């Protein structure tokens, strides 16, 4: 039992393994790793798992994080730009073909505009994740931003899209501990 978070088991013996159609694991450059700890708002969290996605411009990591109150979320790391988001239960979401660049939607009282559409696939998984099935073909992610630091993603892995809403965060604000070391830095 994890003395820190009391509910989720952090399995350090599940190493990073590749999934899907990739020939090999992409180079791993994230400063985060399993067991990295940090702070968001006034809650602490620990990193328990990750998914690596790949697309034509490179890749990014979605780190699965668990807070000390038992709730979980996602810390995404795309070329060292960090975002923390949580799944939101909103009944009416646009279809994938309708979520075009520049379209606006309002969720949680925040106006969002579609800023990018990404065709990605899974490239690797590690650690504890909240779902089992991940061997998908191409997934469409629609990213939205607001005029403040808000961020939203529509995940079109399934027929019904899943909405994640969160905020862009600075590396310093996360107060990360137990990060990876880089040669020469």
């Amino acid at each position, binding site marked *: 039992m994890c*003395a820190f978070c009391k509910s989720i088991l952090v399995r350090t013996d599940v190493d990073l393994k590749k999934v899907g159609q990739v020939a090999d694991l*992409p*180079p791993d450059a994230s400063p985060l790793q399993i067991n990295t700890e940090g702070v968001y708002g006034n809650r602490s969290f620990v990193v328990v798992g990750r998914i690596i996605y790949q697309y034509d411009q490179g890749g990014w990591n979605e780190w699965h994080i668990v807070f000390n109150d038992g709730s979980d979320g996602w810390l995404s790391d795309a070329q*060292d*730009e960090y*975002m923390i988001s949580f799944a939101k239960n909103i009944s009416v979401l646009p279809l994938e073909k309708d979520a075009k660049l520049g379209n606006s939607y309002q969720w949680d009282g925040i106006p969002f505009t579609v800023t990018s559409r990404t065709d990605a696939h899974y490239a690797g998984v590690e650690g504890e994740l909240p779902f089992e099935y991940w061997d998908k073909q191409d997934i469409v992610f629609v990213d939205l931003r607001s005029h403040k630091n808000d961020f939203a993603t529509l995940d079109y892995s399934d027929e019904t899209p899943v909405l994640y809403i969160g905020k*862009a965060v600075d590396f310093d604000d996360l107060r990360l501990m137990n990060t990876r070391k880089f*040669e*020469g830095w």
Partner: protein
Amino acid sequence: MPETGPGKTIPSVSVRSLSCPNCGGTVIVRSFGQAVTVVCGGCHSILDAQDPNVQVLQKFKAAVKFEPLIPLGARGKLRGTLYEAIGYQRRQIMVEGVPYSWAEYVLFNPYKGFRYLTEYNGHWNDVAPLRTLPDATPGIWTAPVRYLGQTYKHFQTAEAQTVFVIGEFPWQVRVGEKAAVSDYVSPPRVLSSETTENKEVTWSLGEYMSGVDIWKAFSLSGQPSPPTGVYENQPSPLSATTKAIWKNCALLLIGAVLLFVLNNVISKDKIVYNNTYTFDTNDPGEHSFVTDTFELTGRAVPVKVETRASLNNNWIYINYALINEDTGQTYDFGREVSYYSGYDSDGSWSEGSPHDSVVLPSVPAGHYYLRVEPESDRGHGQISYAVTVTHDHPVAAWFLIALGLLVVPAVLTTWRSINFEHRRWQESDHASSGLSSALSAFSSGDNDD
């Protein structure tokens, strides 16, 4: 039950080096796998940095080989964070058939990510991509954009084309790739929007930096080349000075007004002699005479002597001498008084004035009298005239001169400031000749922190 905590030490991520599949040269990759593309320094092929087989994505022949001013691998501290220069590209726009190219540097920190430096003609900018959308007017790209409480004015929109690359990039760089770039300025900052061929728009915010600060940050040897011209978001070196000078000017003007008022209050401005005489132009004899004496007291002050003659198309010239009875010191002066008027086809007209006034400087205390000798043409009848002597009369001219002297330098600095802004906007899409554009551009001014 497996325990948590860092059970096994994970080794640090190491710097990779690849073998270029085109020329066999060694290519160093500094960004630990964040780079999407990397350029071979030897043959300039663009390689896929994410593919372990290091595919060649594009080959290009570098017509001119550019040397980055910040060598790749150099590290410098910006905003408290250490960054390493890992990539360099040159992009170019065409304005009225003339190509303008600038340099862009990719900076990397394994924790904080990527930052960029741009350089044009010795002007540098520290640029970071924005993760928040600025407030732009959809469809009208020349409209101002608001971001974090500041308004950015449209400066230029152009198509930027990549013409040279070396090093690593976190995107699929290709020589020849195009993007529509719009710059909005609020000196010392600039908001840039880039629209790539797939219609995605990214915003970034840049802050102006001097070459000296860049050289210091990266500990580069030698001197940076001095900047030429005025750059779009270059802060005006004059605006702060101009504000301060006008503030000082206002205080000094208040001081001048106080001195003027004080002088007017202190000055006695008292009539010490007043009399009327008649001059018979037909009388051929001696016309000179002396007045009674009058006393002037206090310090040496201006004395005003007024002559009022009743003239009608006539003239009179009066030789005056103000003589100190005790010392004999004499102020010798002459005043011409003439007045003509009439009526013709254009209406009534007049020339000259029947009233003359003159001020003598610094007349010390003492007993004085006037020696008066009038002159005119013969046969001009009787001319009566009044002579008035006023003691301690305040001279307003000095105050007006002081006003001018105080205001002129302030106006000059404002003029130089307007000129600077005019030169800035001459480079933009909104360049126009004429003072009106310079004045309207001046209002764009600076946003000082």
